[in-house]
């Protein structure tokens, strides 16, 4: 069975405990405008078109590119002999994924790290992922999942017994923006949160900090109130970054110019949260 792999990134330091390999999977039920992996949102992989790599950008002779409609047509070409166009993800067989993940097995053990599944929403691929998780568990590899909690609730029990750590991304900056390709019950987040709570996995909450939303009157107070309602667990605050801006451009998706709060504001909000909980609260700098 294959998995739609966007990329596999080794030596990750912010995707759970220790040094980890993170597997990014295609497809998400949400379409957050600040998403740092916009290519992973659609269920069908979109194509990147890197105009910088297009010979038209370099303005050179290119017999290989004869017949290419770009730039005259204005639309991105579907294929490119020079590799300026490539799909966001491709199917990879489980065995190949496992082999890749096991390259750093010794490093995981030495650093108390492991493998993290992210995306996209990894729970959307529960059935396809289960054999891989079984194999990883057999090898004694620590498994983490980064999830929004927005996925069909029947998927959770398939994977939860194998998961050691859940990184729950709280999409609370705005009301959720849904990917129209996937329909979910209205109380999906609550249902999945309840399933997470009874699972044996450790939990970390993650919250992206976006100035434009935090500055809305009453927003901070409502966030603090909602955080207080959650079962206690460590909280990681991630100031918004713009590392994905070029991906939006290459996908032909409008980039929403949001920004991170100032460093002092981040620290102040972090301190506010700390007063509400005994669990560790960490401000990450990516």
């Amino acid at each position, binding site marked *: 069975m294959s998995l739609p792999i966007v990329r596999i990134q080794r030596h990750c330091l912010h995707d759970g405990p220790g040094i980890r390999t993170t597997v990014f999977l295609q497809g998400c039920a949400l379409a957050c405008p600040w998403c740092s992996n916009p290519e992973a949102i659609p269920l069908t992989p979109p194509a990147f078109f890197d105009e910088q790599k297009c010979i038209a950008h*370099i303005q050179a002779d290119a017999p290989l590119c004869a017949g290419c409609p770009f730039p005259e047509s204005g639309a991105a070409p579907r294929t490119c002999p*020079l590799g300026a166009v490539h799909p966001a993800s491709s199917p990879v067989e489980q065995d190949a994924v496992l082999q890749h993940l096991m390259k750093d097995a010794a490093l995981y053990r030495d650093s108390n790290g492991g493998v993290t599944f992210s995306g996209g929403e990894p729970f959307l691929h529960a059935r396809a992922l289960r054999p891989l998780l079984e194999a990883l568990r057999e090898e004694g590899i620590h498994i983490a999942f980064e999830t929004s909690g927005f996925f069909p609730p029947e998927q959770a029990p398939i994977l939860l017994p194998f998961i050691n750590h859940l990184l729950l991304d709280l999409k609370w900056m705005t009301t959720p923006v849904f990917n129209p390709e996937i329909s979910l019950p209205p109380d999906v987040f609550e249902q999945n949160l309840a399933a997470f709570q009874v699972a044996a996995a450790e939990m970390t909450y993650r919250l992206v900090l976006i100035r434009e939303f935090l500055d809305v009157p009453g927003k901070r107070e409502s966030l603090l109130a909602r955080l207080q309602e959650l079962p206690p667990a460590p909280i990681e605050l991630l100031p918004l970054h713009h590392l994905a801006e070029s991906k939006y451009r290459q996908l032909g998706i409008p980039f929403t110019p949001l920004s991170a709060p100032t460093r002092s504001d981040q620290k102040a909000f972090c301190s506010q949260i700390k007063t509400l909980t005994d669990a560790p609260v960490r401000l990450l700098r990516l």
Partner: protein
Amino acid sequence: MNTLKHSIKQVGQRCLPPSVHHQFGDYLGYIRQAPRRHSSRFQFYRDFLSYRHQRRFSLPAEDPAQPQVAAAEQFARLLHWFKPSPLETEYFYPLDDHLIFIQPPHCTSIASLSPDYTEVFHLNLEDLRPRDPQTPFARSMDITIRSVLHLIEKVAAHLERQGTARSRQVADYLRRLPSSPPASFDEALQKILFYNGLLWQNRYLHNGLGRLDLVLAPYYDADIRANRITHAEAKEMLKAFIRQLGAHTRFKSIKLIGDTGQVIMLGGRTPESDSFEHDLTFLFLEVFQELNIPDPKCILRVGAHTSDNLWLAAASCMATGCGSPLLVNEDLVIPLMQEHGYSPEDSLQAAIGACWEPYVIGKSFDQTNISPALFPLLVFTDLLRQLPNEPIPDFPSFLRRYEEQLKKSLPPSRQTVDFTPAPLLSLLFPDCHTRQKDISEEGTRYNFHGRQVVGLPNTINALLNIKQLVYDTPRFTLPELADILETNFEGREDVRQLAQRSPLQFGSTHPDVLMLTQQIMQMLTRVTEHHTINGHKARMGFASSRYVDSAESIPASLDGRKASAPVAAHIIPLSPDIDIAEALDFGGSLTYNTTWLNGNVVDFIIPPSFLADLPALAKILKHGIHRGAYEVQLNVLSHEQLLDARAHPEKYPNLIIRVWGFSAYFCDLPVAYQDEFIRRTAPSCLCP
């Protein structure tokens, strides 16, 4: 500037006899290529004039009957001119960079050796002085020892006259130096600096320092135990010692400022211990981290035995971006050295020579970078020219033809090199006394010389492209590609881009890339199997320096590189898609046989953001070495920072770059090297 270069050359020719003016030309060439920091034309002229009016040249004898004796006399003359100056630093360093030792013509300079200072500490110059010097070697020793003793007396008297407590103490150290081992850590440092300074004064190049944590440990321990010094005082002494070594970088450099080869080895196994990790090992790393200077450099021997604490100390030092330490996988290197012919006991005293080349401290005369280097990229030019008459049906046949052509292009299989006699070095190498031979005449037990291979990563990418574009999914014929190369991709930028963007790139762990790389390594092993230098098996490696200037004569290549553009050095990933994990895997997946002993460094640039978690970096490096990487060096740079440094050098006086096997200030580098690093750090780094 061309007129200036011409006039410099003319002055060199007028000032010096024809037999030596080419060395003078080299010297001036070095000034031209490496402008001093924040150089201005005014400073340039000032430097140039200072060479005419302030320097004093010790010239070699014309056609000497006994070259060793002549070399010793030349050295003695230089020391006779040496004028002691008041002690202004903690230690006395016998190097006056106005005194220039001119090497004899038609001889190759000696470089990249290190005496064993444990043995040097116990040298008794009076005992070594020949009673009846009849042979050329004995006479050269007699002259050398007498001149050193004379210098010591001259300097000690001067320092006593200076009259400060420190100058009197150093004078006392110097008077004890010829016949007594050091009595303290401080005295041991002074003794090393004394001999090291003399080596530089005598114009030996890339003078290594050896395993200084191991050498100094007994003196440090004794002083600490007896409460004569504290840890903090020892650290200050080491700082003064390192600063002293780094005070003449410009004088000591060979091609670019910083290329001094001043290597301090740390850590590693000893005959008595599986892992030598001493207070001093950590102290040296701390000092390098705090001083954050490019010269000298330190190299850490690591392996399965290395403790996590030492890994962390190494990562913390590397994170400063000073380029130190280079990590050497001794679990891989030492067995290979033994297989090559070094004894098991001696190989435990392994050090690294100029950049990445292993040798034995105090027992090797391994000249590891002798010209001519091998240029496997040049083979394509000849091979592709012959093609129209002879189609090559498949890629294995192409590889066979490549191998035949490679064989034809190699230098003669038996190379003989005449080295400059080196009486001072011979004095410091006990083997030379046992054999009564100068080090240049194989006075030491090991004489395994080597060569560099320039542009091997580009060669492998070019071959991968030929496989892909001509045979696997045919889009071009070989003659078509030959024409495209002949015209330097003129009108075919699309092919150049195609070649550069192949998903199969050197440094990737894709099975096709690994297999071809191994094939080419085996091929080079086969074709050089019977190659000897001075009768000993020649060695080589993936590591090559001078990837900018040595590439100027290489035509366009099928990796998408234009004619004269820099080639890739070492094991550097040639695609931005290859991360440090894959680069380390790639380096660890190659099979290094004894032919490849000369150094195979994985060279990676990490962004400053990587350094937020030093324990993680330490573990990544540790596991990279455990998985078989031969050597690892890191740069800590960002593209934006380099662009800004290029535009505003005054803002980045201390920005350090690991250039090849040495580090230098970015602002000191010639523009071509600055450009090369700016290109390498670019988000979509492609060949120029």
